[in-house]
């Protein structure tokens, strides 16, 4: 599962990454600490949620391409 699978991203991935990293740093949030906060169950649930949303967005974007309507 890599973050590039929905490839036409609005921003370069790096930009978003740096931004989030910076925000975490500024608020003293350490990734290691975060990992301990999440139980495996929660991980599972969040994973499913994200997958679900990604699918929905893909669906939504596909719908967009189909609607090249001509009017009479």
């Amino acid at each position, binding site marked *: *599962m890599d*973050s590039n699978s*929905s490839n*036409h*991203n*609005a*921003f370069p*991935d790096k930009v*978003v*990454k740096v*931004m*989030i*990293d910076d*925000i*975490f740093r*500024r*608020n*003293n*949030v350490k*990734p290691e600490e*975060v*990992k301990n*906060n*999440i139980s495996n169950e*929660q*991980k599972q649930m*969040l*994973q499913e*949620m*994200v997958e679900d*949303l*990604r699918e*929905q*967005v893909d669906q*939504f*974007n596909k*719908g*967009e391409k189909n*609607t090249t*309507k001509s*009017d*009479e």
Partner: protein
Amino acid sequence: MTSYKRHDTTNPFGNKSKYFYLRDKRKHGHQCCQDCGTTNCAPGCNQCDRCRDEHKHHDRHDQHNQFEMVEVDPNATVSQEGGQYAFMDQESAEIIWVKESCDITVDSRDTQIGVSLQASLQLAIALVLNIAIADSGRSEAVSQDLMQYFNADQINKQKIFIYNTKDATVTTRDTDLAINIQVLLQLLITLVVMVDIL
């Protein structure tokens, strides 16, 4: 007459920035009379003849400007909202007139799905942050910081007028919304990857 109607129909969707612009416009209109140099230009001001004329003139102008702003405004993107708790404000308003026509199919489902999708994405991001950062004070601070980067107001108004037509299909879609959704999804996925859930 038609412009009057237009003004009235857009109002119910009450959008703050629009009013801001309108008031702003009016203020400009009131720095007025060059002859007597009055700055205090209450509408009833009678300092000199010129002044009175100006006022009449301005009144007409004001109305004209209002309509102008209403029509121009949909393209404006306003940042810097005071509210800290909304990631993105997206307002989609549609007005569809169908007049003297038959067999018209209007489908605005796409836009509605998009709005709810955006809401779910925002919720998901907040959720991930809240779970990942146990300390609620800090998780709130982090989401606020994120919001500051992604704070965008978008107002979309579509007006569709169908007149004297038969057998037409209209599908509405909000492209700005589609971009918002893409951005939010990217943010969510990156976030999730960074806290090592995926």
